[in-house]
């Protein structure tokens, strides 16, 4: 009925089939509600302070840091695809590039938003730029992430400007065209920045001499986790891309990218994952046998507490590492969509588990002989504000998908399966 009143077909790219506006709004409604809840929870934390969370002096980092590290790792698909397309000239991945950029933008902006709630004095956060401590991994992270977020914005704008209505403004068109020439440069810069902050995020924990569970020997100023984090991020980024694209295809009922893009991504992801697993295993052995004993900590001490037994280690490296690596690499499995997606999901789960262990287990474990093992359960405010970020992501992605050319249109009949 009213749908005619606010028909938005003028804004939708020609030839693209999109569900009716009311149906689209229906889809957005629950996410908007979730976002509102998240904003409310974040507001509570900002107004009343972090006593709204369940963090404490021993568990100074909680759910937020874990999920920040998680989504930033998954968001790595953005820079890595850019890197493949523009630097390594893998043109066949171009169809998925825009979607990758939008995903990256969502992950990073979301992470930064959460970080702003997570610090006790957000208004002083900018001091890092004024009085930076160049020895701190967190400084490196702060600089790179904020710069890279800027890069992502610049990469996002041209996609934005390719909207059917916006591109009718001549000046915008020119601007977009100029900017587009810049994109390969941006991709290069983004790659550099990303390599650094993905690494620094790993370094964040690897340098913690006082936390033998996280502390790693390394090379020059960088602990081994620096390189492991980069590897795991670029290995799982593509898998996450596949997952999201597949999900979008399922929801919209459109085939969006050619199958061989998937296979290509899967292969890259699989190979890198295999390398990562090898490196991670070596690192773990060195750490357990040399680094941590040197600090006076016997390895069994780390895995003596439920639920953080050795199984969690093997799950991370084997079940969610080696297995998906194989599944993604070998044609036999990679060509089967079901296997492919399962493997991708496992890879993502693996990187999340790794970030979880690095953040949460590190803090839960005792250091002093008379410390006890600590439990921590996030408060609803922590969960809600993060759920808000997820919702924000879904909304931004849905809008981008609806109004922007995220995926290059495929030739051949794309079947319109109904679904929302």
């Amino acid at each position: 009925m009213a749908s005619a009143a606010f028909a938005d077909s003028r804004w939708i790219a020609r030839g693209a089939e999109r569900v009716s506006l009311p149906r689209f709004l229906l889809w957005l409604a629950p996410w908007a509600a979730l976002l509102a809840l998240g904003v409310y929870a974040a507001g509570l934390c900002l107004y009343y302070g972090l006593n709204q969370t369940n963090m404490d002096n021993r568990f100074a980092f909680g759910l937020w840091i874990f999920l920040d590290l998680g989504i930033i790792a998954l968001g790595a698909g953005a820079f890595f695809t850019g890197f493949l397309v523009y630097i390594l000239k893998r043109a066949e991945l171009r169809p998925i590039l825009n979607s990758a950029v939008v995903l990256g933008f969502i992950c990073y902006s979301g992470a930064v938003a959460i970080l702003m709630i997570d610090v006790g004095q957000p208004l002083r956060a900018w001091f890092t730029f004024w009085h930076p401590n160049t020895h701190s991994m967190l400084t490196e992270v702060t600089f790179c992430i904020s710069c890279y977020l800027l890069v992502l914005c610049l990469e996002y704008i041209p996609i934005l400007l390719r909207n059917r209505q916006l591109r009718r403004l001549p000046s915008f068109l020119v601007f977009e065209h100029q900017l587009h020439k810049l994109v390969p440069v941006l991709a290069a810069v983004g790659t550099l920045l990303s390599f650094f902050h993905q690494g620094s995020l790993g370094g964040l924990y690897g340098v913690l001499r006082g936390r033998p569970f996280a502390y790693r020997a390394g090379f020059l100023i960088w602990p081994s986790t620096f390189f492991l984090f980069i590897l795991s991020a670029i290995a799982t980024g593509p898998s996450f891309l596949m997952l999201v694209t597949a999900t979008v295809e399922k929801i919209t009922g459109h085939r969006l990218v050619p199958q061989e893009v998937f296979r290509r991504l899967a292969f890259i992801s699989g190979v890198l994952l295999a390398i990562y697993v090898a490196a991670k295993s070596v690192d773990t052995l060195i750490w357990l046998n040399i680094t941590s004993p040197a600090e006076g900590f016997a390895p069994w001490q780390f895995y003596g507490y439920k639920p953080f037994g050795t199984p969690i280690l093997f799950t991370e490296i084997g079940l969610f590492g080696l297995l998906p690596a194989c599944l993604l690499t070998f044609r036999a499995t990679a060509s089967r969509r079901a296997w492919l997606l399962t493997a991708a999901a496992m890879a993502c789960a693996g990187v999340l588990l790794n970030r979880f262990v690095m953040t949460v287990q590190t803090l839960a474990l005792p250091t002093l002989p008379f410390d006890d093992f600590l439990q921590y359960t996030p408060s609803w405010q922590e969960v809600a504000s993060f759920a808000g970020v997820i919702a924000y992501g879904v909304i931004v992605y849905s809008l981008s998908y609806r109004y922007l050319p995220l995926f290059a249109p495929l030739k051949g009949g794309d079947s319109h399966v109904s679904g929302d």
Partner: protein
Amino acid sequence: MSARYGMVIDLDRCTGCGSCMVACAAENNVPALPQATPRTGLTPILVRRVSNGRDGAERREGFIPIMCMHCEHDTPCVKVCPQQAVEVDKATGIVMQMPQRCLGCRYCMTACPYHARYFNWWDPAWPTGMEESLNPGVAVRMRGVVEKCNMCHARLHAAKEKAAAAGKREIDPVDYIPACVEACPTGAIHFGNLADTNDPVCKEARSPDAFRLLARLGTEPKLYYKSKEAWVRALAESSAPASEVQHG
């Protein structure tokens, strides 16, 4: 000129009365937090109860005051602070926390192996009129920043000023004694200059009974403990004893 202030705490003399904790809080304008828990409170010096892990008549218990160890080498918190809110003072070796610079990221808290750093989870508040009882030498910290033992820096300020007014360059050691040291009823906490080999504390720190917590981390803490009891000295090394690990 440059001193290396440190402490030697004689654990055999500690009765766990808690005087040091209250005296410290009073000296440094640490608010009392009725809404806090042992995990969210502000206790720049915290006396912890330790045992030899046995039961019945065999059981021995002791107390061990934990505060900032003022690590000398590769100081974990200094290294990680993104905006130089923590530094090791060249003149005194004191690890300084600048609450006004701190953005409350709490990275230093995760870096500290001794859990000697505390976050202001709440706004500092005192009942009406009680602001009058605040120590004029210490600025009150605000919500959302990390704080820790600054070795009663206000007392060092006062000592410096007194010395300057008297036309002296060096402070008189009796003018600079941290609150916890002054408060201890059994004289268990000894404070002095570890760089001065004539300082009794410096000698004590080298005694065979002396030890440091987690010394093998290599951060060179300037807080020493000493005990004649073997099971207490055993606390120096490593992490939780096997007995406790099983029922984790």
